[in-house]
Every structure is written in C-alpha cells, then in structure tokens.
C-alpha cells in the first residue's frame, strides 16, 4: 500500500516537530538560569574562600553573645550586657515605633494638606501646593539632617521652651506629660480594645440589617457604650487611678513625663513631613478622580456635606487612593533606616554596629533584609486585603 502512494509524507524540520516555540523557550530558560546559577556559584565560592582566609566563622551563633553596645533610647528594657539577639529585638521595636507612629501622623497630615490643596480658599491651596512641591524636591536625608541640627540648636534643658504648660522642648528632646501604664490600667485598656472588636461585629450586623430593609440604624450609641462607658465603669469599679505624670526640671535633667529623644523626634518629623507631601498628592488625585457628576447628584439630593463626603465621595476616592498609599507606607518604613545617619538606634543602625563589632557582615545584612522583607510583606498583605475589600465589584 505504501508503495502505491506517489507522494512521500512532508518532511518536517526537527524543531518544528518539537514545537519551535517550546524549544526556544527552553533554550532561553536554560541560558538565563544557567547564568544566574553560575554567577551565584562564583560569588559563593569566592565568599567561602575569603571567609576562611580571614578566619571569619559564619552562622548565627554570635547572636547569643553579649552585645556590649549602649542603646540610648528604647521601648524595651535593655542593658549592654544583654545578647546581640535582644539588641536586634530592641532595634526592631525602635523601627516599628517610628514606622507605626510615622504612618499614622503622615496619613493625617497628608490628608489635611491634600484636602487643603483643593480648598476654595486660594491662599490655603497655594500654601499647600508650596508645601508639597518643596518637601518633595529635597532629599529626605538632607531634611533629616536639617531637623537634627535644629533639634541640637534648641536651648539646654534649663532654658527649655515651654510652648504649653507641661511640654518642654530642649536639646534633650521633647518632653510631654504621660500617664503611667501598669497592670490595672492595662486591664481597662484591654477592655476598650475588646469593646472595639465587639463594636466591629455589631456594626457589621447593623449594616446587614440596613441592607435588608433600608432603615438606617445609628451605630454611635453602641460605640460609646462599648468603647468608653463600659471600660470607664470597669476602671471605676476596680479603682484604677489615671494620674498624669507632669514632667519637672530637677537638677540638669527632667524627671517624669515621656521623653522623645532628639534623634527620634527629628527622624519622626522628617519622615512625617516628607511622606505627608506624597500622601497629599495621592489624596488630591483620589478626590479629583471622583466624577463631578457624583458631587452634582449628591447636591441635587440635598445631602448634608459630611454625609455626602462620607458616603459618596470617600468610598470612590479610596479605590484610587489605597494602592499608591500602600507604597508610601512601605517607603516610610524603609526610609526609617536613615536613622543610622543621626544615630537613632533602629534595626539598621544596630545591625551596622554589630557588623563592625563582630565582622559578621553577611548575617547582619541578612537580618536587616529579613526584617524589612517581613515588614514590607505584612504591610502589603494587609493593604491588599483592605484594597480587595473596598475595590469596585463589577458584575
């Protein structure tokens, strides 16, 4: 039979038979991965040789040793006899202290300035524009050094500025009155946090009820009872005292009150003002992205201004605002590593000292990277979750 067939089957090129696309793809992948592996292998073997030549031992065993470095300003209790591991933990706490407070303040300030830029008041909107343009176009490190120099130029503790009673600003930093928090107070605060969680559930229930019958149900009485009244009753019942510790100048230094060290304060101001300029632009573009027809429609319905902003404009603006805001939060957190320039001991600065003391460069930098990757991933995870919640669901 085959003999009868006058035409031989068409000859196909080998590559076509295998699918030239797949083959090409395979070739490129092998090439790129091969190069990557070769480069990493080269660096790795050099590193191993260099480490043994310099008699540097690798591994994280050094973390258990006594750190011996002073940490001036920390949330957690620390003394130089503690281990490197604990020093790192203290550093992470310091980084988080700057980042979390910085994010909150920058969001508030940035939103205010972003809204001011859209104000009908010409002067206010111009001033906000100048603020944004100036702060965005000067390197953060320069601003940080500038604030730090200003902090150091403040008068000494004895001649401290007192903008309001109980608040002192001197070259020792900002000293504010504080409320000492101890076990009984923590119980009351815990009750308030519990109240917030319960209130969140209650609010979801109220919204679902409103979705069913369209009747608005005010949530604020629940909030007042759960978050304020019940904890207050608990506090009264347990007899917890909420005395304010007023700072006082005694000798050459302050006693009582809460001290924000100059390094911390300068870092916080620099991060907050710098980031707020970027946040202001994000907020402005978010609000402007809401079509003007939405404003007109809300006006036509005769809605109150606050209601209109809260229920109509903001939910739409947030969709535009949240993704870029996430990267600003990440930037602020990463930028807090500039602390090393003015000697605030965040995790980077402590890792740097460790590196100089022990020579464990690879481990110290690996720890910095691990810490920041964890923080970055957590922030973007949370913000992505939030973004998915508020995103527009189409069909």
């Amino acid at each position: 039979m085959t003999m009868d067939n006058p035409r031989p089957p068409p000859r196909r090129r080998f590559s076509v038979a295998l699918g030239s696309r797949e083959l090409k793809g395979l070739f490129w992948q092998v090439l790129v991965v091969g190069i990557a592996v070769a480069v990493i292998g080269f660096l790795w073997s050099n590193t191993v040789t260099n480490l043994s030549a310099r008699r540097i031992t690798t591994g994280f065993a050094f973390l258990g040793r006594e750190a011996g470095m002073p940490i001036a300003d920390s949330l957690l209790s620390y003394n130089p006899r503690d281990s490197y591991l604990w020093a790192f933990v203290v550093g992470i706490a310091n980084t988080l202290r700057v980042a979390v407070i910085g994010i909150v303040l920058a969001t508030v300030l940035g939103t205010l300035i972003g809204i001011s830029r859209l104000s009908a008041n010409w002067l206010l909107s111009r001033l906000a524009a100048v603020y944004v343009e100036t702060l965005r176009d000067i390197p953060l490190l320069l601003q940080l050094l500038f604030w730090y120099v200003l902090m150091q130029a403040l008068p000494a503790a004895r001649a401290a500025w007192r903008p309001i009673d109980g608040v002192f600003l001197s070259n020792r930093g900002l000293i504010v009155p504080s409320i000492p928090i101890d076990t009984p107070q923590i119980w009351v605060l815990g009750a308030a946090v519990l109240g917030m969680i319960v209130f969140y559930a209650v609010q979801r229930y109220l919204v679902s009820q409103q979705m069913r019958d369209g009747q608005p149900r005010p949530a604020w009485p629940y909030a007042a009872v759960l978050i304020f009244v019940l904890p207050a009753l608990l506090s009264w019942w347990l007899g917890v005292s909420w005395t304010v510790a007023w700072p006082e100048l005694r000798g050459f230094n302050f006693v009582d009150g809460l001290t924000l060290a100059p390094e911390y304060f300068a870092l916080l101001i620099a991060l907050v003002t710098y980031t707020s300029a970027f946040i202001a632009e994000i907020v402005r573009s978010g609000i402007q992205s809401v079509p003007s027809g939405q404003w007109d429609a809300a006006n036509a319905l005769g809605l109150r201004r606050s209601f209109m902003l809260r229920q109509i404009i903001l939910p739409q603006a947030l969709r535009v605002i949240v993704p870029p805001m996430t990267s600003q939060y990440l930037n602020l957190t990463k930028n807090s590593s500039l602390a090393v320039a003015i000697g605030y001991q965040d995790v980077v600065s402590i890792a740097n000292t460790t590196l100089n003391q022990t020579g464990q460069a690879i481990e110290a930098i690996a720890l910095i990277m691990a810490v920041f990757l964890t923080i970055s991933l957590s922030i973007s995870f949370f913000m992505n979750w939030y973004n998915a919640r508020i995103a527009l669901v189409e069909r």
Partner: protein
Amino acid sequence: MTAITDSPEVPRAARRPQMGNPVLRWLRTNLFSSIPNGILTVVLLAVLGKGVFSFVQWGLANAVWLTPANDSSACRAVRGFGACWAIIPEKYRFILFGIYPFDEQWRPALSVLLFIALFYLSSRRALWRRELVYLWIAVLGLISVLMWGGVLGLSFVSQDRWGGLPVTLILATFGLAFGFPLGILVALGRRSKLPAIRSLSVLYVELIRGVPLVSLLFMASVMFPLFMPSGFNIDKLLRAQIAIILFAGAYLAEVIRGGLQAVPRGQYEAADALGLSYWRKNRLIVLPQAIRHVIPPLVNTFIAFFKDTSLVLIIGIFDLLTTAKTAIIDPAWQQFSVEVYIFVAAIYFVFCFAMSRYSRSLEATSGR
C-alpha cells in the same frame, strides 16, 4: 474646616452675579467666599506674615554676606538672630567639588555643565532620535576624560578625590543609563511566558524593592569585597554605583511593566501576525508604546532616584550632601550648618523641580 471646591472645572465666579471692582471680586471669591473662609484667610495671613517677617529678618536683614577669609567672627556676632551666608562664598568650592585638586576644579565644573546640557537636550521631544543615544555615549565619555584626566595633557585625578555635585550627577546619570535597559529586560522577563525567567525577575524586583536602599549600600560597601576573588579590588564609588544601578533597575522595571500592561493585546497579536520575532516585536511595536505611556511616572522615578543618591553619605562617598556635611566640621564654621543645608537643598530643589515641571508638561501634552 476647609471646604472642597465642588468641581474644579466650573469657574467659581460664575455662581455670583459679577459686579464691582475685579480685584475686590477676586478677593471675595477666592479668599472671603464665606465667614469660615474669611477667618481662615486672616489666620493664615497672620501666620504667613509672621513667618515671612522672621525669615526676612534672619535671612536678609540681619544676615552676614561676606567676611574676610577664614574669619567667622562677624557671623558669631549675629548668631541666633541673623544668617551667616558668608559661609557659602567661603566653602562653595569644597561643597561643589570636594577635595578635587583646587587648580583643576574647572574640570568638574565643566562636567556639571555638560551634564546639564545633556539633560536639557534629552528633554526636547524633537530630538528623540537614535542620534541622541550616540550623543549620550559621547558626552559621558568626554566627562570621564575630564574627570579622570591622564590624557590630552590633563593631570590624572584618582576617583577617591572626586566629590560634590559631579559625583551626585554621575551616580544618578550612570544609574539611569544602565538601570533603564536593565529595567526593560526585567519588565519583559516579568511578563514572559517562561516560568523560570518570570520567577527570577519577580524575585529580583521584590527582593530589591522590599529592602531599604541603605542596606543595599551597606552590602555594596561591606559584602562586595567578600564576593570577589581575593586581590580583585574595585573602587568604593563603583561599588556604590553598582548598588544604585541594581536599585534603579528594579524600580524602573515596575514602571515599565505598568506601561507594558497598558499596550492593548491587539498590538501584540498584530505583531505576531506579521511574523515578527520576540525581540523585533518588542523593540519595534510594544516598547515604544509602553514607554510613551509611562513617561510621566518615569520622570517621577528619576526624581526619587536623584534624591536617593544622597544616601551614599551613609557609606562615606563624597557626594554633594556629604561634602556639605564635611564642610561644616571646620570648628570656625560649625554653628552655621543650617545655612549650608539650605544652600544644598536649593541645588537639589532646582534639579528636582525642573524635572517635576517637565513631567507636568509631558502629562499635559500626552493627555491630548
């Protein structure tokens, strides 16, 4: 609180019947449209007036502009209530050029001018042609000759004597010149259908963007020597430059990826239908469109990146900010760091503001 304008497109003046003096009308609509607005205006004017007044008093009226060389006594006399601008003429050559040999400082100065000319020409849309790439190569080569010397009768100046503004411009420009093609490759890699290439690109971008630039710079300054064969030593500036290129590549890759996503599928399909190869398809059809989409965010990335080069201060490279910080170590002038920082901030501001204006104008024209 402040009121939000209902819609920026509608002229506000249209709401009231127009009457009277135009100046008064302008004041009324823009500053005193309501009672809270009027109060706000008055408060702002008071605060602004006080701020401007004290700045004028400190920075102009009581300031010391010039002193005899190395004599800061006049500045000390006004300390606290007057600025000491005299520190700028005293130190400006150090701030701008670092410890580059004093008599040869015309060379870095000329390099700075060449850089500025290069940026200016690159910003002209009419000149966006292939020749611009050759111009870049030629000018960057010329700048290297000027800075290093050793040929054409110029004396050799080693890299560790470079400093100040030229170093900032070199770090930023070379960072972009190499980071940009790297970013394009990584962006293409991230959208590739090949899993190994895609995951390598994702890993690279996420690792670099997830950590602070400071830690990359530490890595360049401390760990790089460990990575290299013994006896192979590369300059600190070059190490920092490599870290900055890697950093720029990751950030630019994300911007370019955004542009690639904005190119409609039909364009890819049309290119495939023409039978173009992967590289020709991207070079001729996809990338030109993608990059045109993202020019404004690219310029914004350039701005961020130009500012971020100042972080090399942390590993002790003499860029503009480091020379400024070093200039005020001199005990005689130590107390006048604010003035120096203002001077350097003004230099950074001019560069960044020019770029941001440019990005604004591009946004306006590309919107058409």
